[in-house]
């Protein structure tokens, strides 16, 4: 065997364990989900067997109002929360990119929400939005207890609360990706612009924003895909309620498969979720182009 061939063989052997993990526990399950979705499978009723039902689950899914509501909610959540995360992420990145005393500590503080477990931040915001002694009620109504609202029992405010909790936790991540983009912009560009008499806003719109485009797109990609799988917040704060106003796809799929035991039907939901996120991610990857994989 030539050394070059030996080296290639060795490279394949080295990657094999990681490859097998991903193949068996990620790719196979995706394909298998599709197979399961063509069957009627009820966990806890093994006596029924697992009859093949063709597209029946998908036809049911198209007529399932709660599922359609979950699709709508998920898109709305993704759109609104990602918008604010990129906006605040950009603002935070611009601030922590500046040189000032104690910048390290400020950067670490900004990272704290990112490190807080989502279940913890969910409970925390649930407490802050609490109807009887939550901080939000106190901030709005002071000691006037009669005016206090049950925010999480209101369809609109419950949704807003979940967006707030998500934006709080993940803006820092967007900020870091954008910060990396800022650091890649050569300082001389700004110096030259200053010499030419460009003000802060002009420099921002003419230099910073255009050169930041790739970093912004990557932050957008990561935040969008992550927002698609929102689950912990909904599970802890609202359980999808009130009246399905915060029911999102990942939560709905979980409920169907694991709470109601509808493995077949729930798998149809899983396949739908996968297809949606696959299309969206492909769209982004096209936009970002090859530079990520060099």
């Amino acid at each position, binding site marked *: 065997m030539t050394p070059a061939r030996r*080296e*290639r063989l060795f*490279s*394949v052997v*080295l*990657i094999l*364990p*990681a490859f097998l*993990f*991903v193949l068996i*526990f*990620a790719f196979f*399950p995706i394909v*298998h*989900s599709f197979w399961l979705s063509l069957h009627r499978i009820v966990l806890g009723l093994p006596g029924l067997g697992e009859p093949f039902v063709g597209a029946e689950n998908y036809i049911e899914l198209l007529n399932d109002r709660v599922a359609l509501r979950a699709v709508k909610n998920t898109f709305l959540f993704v759109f609104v929360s990602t918008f604010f995360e990129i906006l605040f992420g950009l*603002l935070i990145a611009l*601030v922590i990119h500046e040189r*000032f005393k104690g910048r*390290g*500590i400020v*950067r*670490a*503080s*900004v990272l*704290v929400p990112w*490190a807080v*477990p*989502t*279940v*913890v931040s969910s*409970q*925390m*915001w649930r407490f802050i939005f609490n109807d*009887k*002694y939550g901080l939000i009620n106190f901030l709005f109504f002071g*000691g006037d*207890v009669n005016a206090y609202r049950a925010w999480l029992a209101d369809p609109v405010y419950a949704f807003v609360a979940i967006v707030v909790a998500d934006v709080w936790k993940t803006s820092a991540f967007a900020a*870091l*990706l954008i*910060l990396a*983009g800022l650091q890649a912009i050569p300082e001389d560009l700004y110096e030259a612009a200053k010499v030419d008499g460009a003000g802060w806003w002009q420099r921002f719109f003419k230099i910073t924003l255009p050169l930041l485009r790739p*970093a912004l797109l990557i932050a957008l990609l990561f935040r969008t*895909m992550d927002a698609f*799988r929102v*689950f*912990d917040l909904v*599970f802890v704060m609202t359980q999808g309620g009130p009246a399905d106003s915060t029911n999102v*796809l*990942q939560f709905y799929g979980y409920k169907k*498969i694991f709470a109601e035991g509808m*493995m077949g039907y729930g798998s149809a*939901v*899983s396949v739908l979720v*996968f297809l949606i*996120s*696959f299309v969206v*991610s492909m769209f982004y*990857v096209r936009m970002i182009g090859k530079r990520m*994989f*060099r």
Partner: protein
Amino acid sequence: MRKWILWALVMVIVFLSLGPFLWFVDTSFKTEVEVTAIPPVICPSGSVGFYVSSIKNYRLLSYVKNSAIVATLTTLITILLSLFAGYSVARLGLPKRELFMKALLVVSMFPQISIAGPVWRILYRLGWLNTYQGLVIPYVTLTLPLGVWVVASFFKQLPEDLEDAAIIDGCSRLGALFRIMVPLSAPGVFTAAILVFIYAWNEFFFALLIMTRQDVQTLPVGIAMFQGQYTLPWGEIAAASTVATVPLVLLVFVFQRRIISGLSAGAIKG
């Protein structure tokens, strides 16, 4: 003027980042009466009653133990596999490596629900529901993309002559990986380890599906399920949340620089 605006913004950002969580920490040191008081009590009496109660009545220590075991095992296995895979991708001219990296990116992005059913069935057949290995397996799968991306990006920055020299001196390829590459990119490997550990420590979705028995549940599941007899035990929830989060906050403050470079390396440089 500009300086003042900057400082004001810094203050607002720091306040909004830390404020909500500090409020929860604050709550954990209150007494039952102080938690529900209006107006809210800002300076708590410093009671550790909720900590004692969450250990005695809510199995806090058992959750901590399970989380520590699962997160540690996940980190060790993921990092080992990432070293192999990262070396293969960054150095050995693996055929189709671009495809492999893209596949990893896809894995790291799709919603967990799209694999949850079949993964649950596999673990059920193996009898691994409610076991540590049953949870570690999906965690390794889901953290491998991050691990491989970060490790590979650090490996690529090392000059190739070092390894070549070692190999000419009779070092095997595997020897070169562990004697040259790993020590030289120790900061990168360590960064990847921190990120993987935080992921495994915080993960909730799979932990919820796989660990249905209380004695094997991890912290996030425990905290999500805290339920009092009549009302929610907010004090205990806050205490357990503090215990679950403080180690991570310490990691962040000590390794801020590495975490930032690791996150952006994993996401951008590839």
